[in-house]
């Protein structure tokens, strides 16, 4: 730094982004990352096309507020399960991060996955890292514009297909496909296809590492789950330093080839230690392993390791002995508890919902024979996909009985308001409110039953 002291100088708090050209890299972790990419994207792009019982298997129908997940039909009343799912995801993230660092970021996060896909396209069209850097530096030429146009068209195609698939989870995707042939989308379908497509194109094509560095909240708070025993991408400084060419006397294991820097999609040098930018993608491990093999050295100068392991020279077994520390046990216990709770709640869930709304206009009316009559409105939701006839049962007071039809029939996923009249002898209950229960039971499936408390009012 040769800026002279005493000379005023402007320091800018905002600077233009420097383009990163990650070098392509193969290796065992790279293969694992591509496997994760295939798995997650096959599910995302594929699941929308599956069929189940004559409808789309996974469909979130916002208009009718019904959420189909294979055999399960969730209603807005079931939103607690969404909350539970989010809690499970959060606890899962905590635990995985505590054990193995940011593997979510490196292997499954859509930002990483789509950046990887877009980089692959970029490589196919513009060439290798050095070719891309050359292309960007050179002046305008037909070759340059042709390649850039082709790249953006290809990116746009992937992005639009992604947006289309996303919308396909909210509008039946086969209908959407038919509509797309005539560009006949509704306004909201247009908006979301284009919006989601644009977000994919912008984030994976242009924003890339900036999303992780400046926008992602997970990226920032995951470091609070780290401790000395968390597996992180580590450069073994004790073995590597002092870095220098192989030929130099007394040089460490690192030959300073800078491959690990060139492959980094975040543009950092892992040899500076753990940095908040590091998404744990392991590209530098693959790069370094490749180099070490070539020069006949042992792999693992950059490897998954922990702070403690580096300081105390632990073996992999030693690292494993530190995995089950208290925070991991607690995360694990909480996770198991919630998963168990949600699973049993889903298992025991009755696909029939009943709300009893007592008519508020009248407390109770006297009818023939010294009977007291109360009116209720039953809000019944048949959340199954079959027609059911339910028997209405009442209990809680002697002589309590229903006046009128004893059954009610609801079609598939139908909601109905059903008015019932209950009668009881005036002396059957105390004056004022009496607790009763109203039950519904499917005639064809006795296990399909719900019971709701209600109040029967006897005038004073």
């Amino acid at each position, binding site marked *: 730094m040769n800026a002279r002291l005493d000379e005023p100088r*402007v320091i800018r708090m905002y600077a*233009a982004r420097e383009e990163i050209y990650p070098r392509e890299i193969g290796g065992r972790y790279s293969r694992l990352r591509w496997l994760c990419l295939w798995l997650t994207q096959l599910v995302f792009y594929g699941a929308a096309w599956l069929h189940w019982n004559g409808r789309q298997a996974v469909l979130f129908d916002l208009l009718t507020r019904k959420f189909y997940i294979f055999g399960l039909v969730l209603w807005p009343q079931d939103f607690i399960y969404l909350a539970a799912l989010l809690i499970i995801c959060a606890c899962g993230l905590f635990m995985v991060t505590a054990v193995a660092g940011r593997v979510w970021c490196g292997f499954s996060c859509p930002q990483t996955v789509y950046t990887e896909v877009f980089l692959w396209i970029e490589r196919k069209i513009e060439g290798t890292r050095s070719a891309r850097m050359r292309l960007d530096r050179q002046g305008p030429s037909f070759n340059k514009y042709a390649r850039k146009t082709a790249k953006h068209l290809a990116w746009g195609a992937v992005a639009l297909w992604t947006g289309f698939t996303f919308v396909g989870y909210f509008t039946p995707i086969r209908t959407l496909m038919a509509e797309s042939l005539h560009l006949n989308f509704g306004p909201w379908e247009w908006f979301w296809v284009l919006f989601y497509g644009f977000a994919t194109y912008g984030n994976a094509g242009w924003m890339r590492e900036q999303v992780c560095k400046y926008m992602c909240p997970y990226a920032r708070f995951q470091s609070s789950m780290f401790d000395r025993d968390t597996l992180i991408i580590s450069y073994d400084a004790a073995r590597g330093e002092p870095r220098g060419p192989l030929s130099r006397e007394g040089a460490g294991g690192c030959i300073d080839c800078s491959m690990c820097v060139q492959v980094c999609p975040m543009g950092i040098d892992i040899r500076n230690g753990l940095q908040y930018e590091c998404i744990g993608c392991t590209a530098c491990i693959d790069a370094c392993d490749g180099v070490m093999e070539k020069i006949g050295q042992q792999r693992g100068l950059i490897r998954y390791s922990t702070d403690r392991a580096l300081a105390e020279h632990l073996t992999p077994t030693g690292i494993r002995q530190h995995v089950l520390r208290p925070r991991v046990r607690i995360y694990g216990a909480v996770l198991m508890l919630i998963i168990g709770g949600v699973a049993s709640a889903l298992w025991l869930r009755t696909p029939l919902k009943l709300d009893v709304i007592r008519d508020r206009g009248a407390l109770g009316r006297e009818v023939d024979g010294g009977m007291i009559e109360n009116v209720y409105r039953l809000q019944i939701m048949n959340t199954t996909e079959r027609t059911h006839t339910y028997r209405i049962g009442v209990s809680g007071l002697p002589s309590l009985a229903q006046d009128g039809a004893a059954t009610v029939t609801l079609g598939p996923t139908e909601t109905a308001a059903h008015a019932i009249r209950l009668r009881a002898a005036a002396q059957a209950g105390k004056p004022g409110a009496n607790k009763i229960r109203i039950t519904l039971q499917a005639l064809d499936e006795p296990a399909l039953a719900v019971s709701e408390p209600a109040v029967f009012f006897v005038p004073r």
Partner: protein
Amino acid sequence: MSDFTDAFWNGYIAVLTLLGVIGCGVLLYSQSMVRRQSGATTTGHVWDEDLTELNTPMPRWWMWLFYITIVFALAYLGLYPGLGEFAGKLGWKSTTQYQEELAKADASYNPQFERYLAQDMKAVAANPQAHAIGERLFLTYCAQCHGSDARGNKGFPNLTDRDWLYGGTPDAIKETIMHGRHGVMPPMAAALGSDKDVENVAHYVMSLSGATSDPIKVVMGKNKFSACMACHGPEGRGNQAIGAPNLTDKIWLYGGSAETIMETIRKGRDNTMPAWGEFLGEAKVHVLAAYVWSLSNKPSAPTTEMTASLAAPAK
């Protein structure tokens, strides 16, 4: 209508708002760079005597996002209300938007109801789909007073019997819903005379429907009943033209015990059914009236028994 008590506050708000927006811009510009007397790579901020912060610049587009929000704010204040009383170039109002959305909803839903408007109400009553619509309308707008089962309550007529205050033809029911009804019985105690007379008339009224009554009081009350005949008719059969109830059936709007009848005679009754025509529109009322009519009449097409018909729409 002014929201301000004084024109001063209008200007005050406008100036404060604009100063705030512009101030944000100035702050942003002034803080995006610092002038320092050294070549260090720190931000120049010093805490606790010697703690400095390494400058890791944010991307420049991030700063532009902030400037865009300022441009957006100024454009918004120009187009929409926000600067004191300035209404904005677009003249947007929440009430206008509400009216527009209402009109749009009407345009999309009304055809469904107008389909039935052209039909005879008895035919509408026999249509299961119209029946289901009518039921939902009833549960939304009518059930609060008349009950979910339409059997009414004290002061609110039972709609499932064949007794009607203003007539039970589909047209009369529609008229009732459209324009509402206001039934008044004046206090009659003074016209009848003493408390004894009131009691006697009450017993005579009870005898009309065959309820247990004191024969002597009935005879004495009968003479005084002439005061009631103008509305309830010489035989007490009521008059649907003015909504005077039939006193000879066992159906009582307020109750048929001696005390309740005496209370009715002494204090009179004043009861209102609100008009729904303007709120619901004739087409919905048409469907609703057909539904109410069907509660006490069997429409020509087969529907299930009354209680069952209250359940799910007849299939």
